[in-house]
């Protein structure tokens, strides 16, 4: 599948934003502290930027509101509805924190639920497609959720890093969830590499009873929408290098940075380390998302 930057940026940033929203919603951070106020604004900004970026993907973005209507059947619609619904408790919680130094458990928990369901809906847009074998698994939403939580915990650790009492549990959780995310993604990738394709050129043409089917001539000499959108290919040698970057930068280096930061304790160096860990993690997730699309094989390519 064509790795469109608008969608990659959308899933990466909004995933991170919702992850942070979960941490804030669970009341991990001190509502009277300035970094917590910045954390609320950061979460809202990340989510907002992600959603705006997703609009860039549309052919007619001015009608985007119509996408809220079909939540009964469409995961994309559910995602839109949940994203907007989650803004309500999230903005209210942010306002409470910013203007009254308060944290409200009920609002917090509602935004946690909203954030998790939104990330789940985003992932189900892909996981529900039977046409893309590597996406069509429960491991896809698991990976999206774990990446979102790991990123949120990392960001939360940064915003709590001046406060040893609140910082340490978040750092430990971040460590744990980075590991979970890493393992889940490795399992996901193993499945994607070893799966047997649902459809083949033989089943696509129905000519398998005669023999092996091979494309002789494309319908048109040059590319079309389908080959551009569904026929993206990455060289295998590049893909394995990119996977290495995704794993190392997305999880392994942030884990090392976290461990060092924890051993140093509260200091400017550990804050800097956490900031670096977040940037590395973001880069890793970005590469992971790029591969998620770029390596995905669509059933229609059996005709090309």
């Amino acid at each position, binding site marked *: *599948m064509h790795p469109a930057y608008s969608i990659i940026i959308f899933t990466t940033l909004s995933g991170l934003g919702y992850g942070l929203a979960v941490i804030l919603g669970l009341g991990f951070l001190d509502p009277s502290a300035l970094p917590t106020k910045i954390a609320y604004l950061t979460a809202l900004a990340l989510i907002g930027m992600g959603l705006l970026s997703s609009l860039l*993907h*549309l*052919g*007619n*973005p001015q*009608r*985007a509101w*119509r*996408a*809220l*209507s*079909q939540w*009964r*059947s*469409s*995961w*994309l*619609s559910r995602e*839109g509805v949940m994203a907007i619904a989650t803004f309500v408790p999230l903005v209210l919680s942010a306002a409470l924190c910013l203007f009254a130094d308060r944290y409200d458990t009920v609002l917090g928990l509602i935004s946690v639920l909203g954030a998790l369901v939104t990330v789940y809906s985003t992932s189900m*847009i892909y996981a*529900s*497609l*039977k*046409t*893309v074998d590597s996406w069509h698994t429960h491991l896809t939403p698991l990976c999206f959720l774990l990446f979102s939580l790991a990123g949120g915990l990392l960001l939360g650790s940064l915003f709590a890093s001046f406060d040893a009492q609140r910082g340490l549990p978040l750092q430990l959780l971040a460590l744990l969830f980075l590991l979970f995310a890493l393992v889940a993604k490795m399992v996901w990738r193993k499945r994607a590499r070893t799966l047997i394709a*649902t*459809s083949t*050129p033989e*089943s*696509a*043409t*129905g*000519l398998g*009873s*005669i*023999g*092996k*089917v*091979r*494309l*002789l*001539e*494309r*319908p*048109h000499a*040059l*590319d*079309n*929408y*389908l080959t551009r*959108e*569904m026929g993206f290919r990455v060289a295998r040698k590049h893909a394995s290098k990119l996977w290495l970057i995704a794993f190392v930068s997305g999880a392994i280096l942030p884990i090392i940075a976290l461990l060092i930061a924890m051993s140093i304790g509260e200091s400017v160096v550990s804050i800097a380390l956490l900031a670096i860990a977040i940037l590395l993690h973001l880069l890793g997730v970005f590469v992971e998302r790029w591969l998620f699309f770029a390596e995905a094989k*669509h*059933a*229609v390519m*059996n*005709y*090309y």
Partner: protein
Amino acid sequence: MTSLPQHRTAKKLGLVIDLDVCVGCHACVISCKEWNTGAYGNALSDQHPYGEDVSGTFLNRVHSFEVVPEGGQVIGEAGDARVVHFPKSCLHCEDAPCVTVCPTGASYKRAEDGIVLVDEDTCIGCGLCAWSCAYGAREMDLAAGVMKKCTLCVDRIYNETLQQEDRVPSCVRTCPANARHYGDLGDPASDVSVMVAERGGFDLMPEQETRPTNKYLPPRPRTSLASAAPMIPLAENTEGARGFFAWLDKTLDRI
């Protein structure tokens, strides 16, 4: 509503495409583009039509495949490789995933005849329906930013201003080889249903569980080149020559 219709009539309008007959002339591709660029919804745009990188929106495309039977590379041993021309457009699936994934309700299936359509004024051009279609039957029009697909020429088949023989999809009307047939596949007595039953018509990618309405008729079995060889008379054989040729044969033999 992008849920599939709950109460459907038995009517399932669709196409039957005969892979034994199609010669791959692409006439149906052109007539489809011609009719649909001026009919239902936005025009089917082309990008860089006079440049090097020409591409455009098509609702019907013809692929050509080579089918090689097991061991078929050795001519005459196990049947020969054959070329099959393969026209492909929307199959108007009964369990159409392109309908249920649509977030806006623009993509819908008609309860009255099973035709799957896109309401272009509601479509936001998200492209998800094209991702959900295993058959590559949907193409985003890059100029209009909306999804285009085969309408089964809904603006011809019910069009009372047209002559009766023109009230079929444009591709069917055009096909010079008569490889395309249109009718009600929900009616077991219809011409198309009978054809499908007699020729063993099949679904594309049944494993995708979309239950296509359109059916394909398989190429008929062929005698391999090797087994056909003895049937060709040898040139030296003059037995059975009559009249002038018999005289010529005899005279030449004597010389």
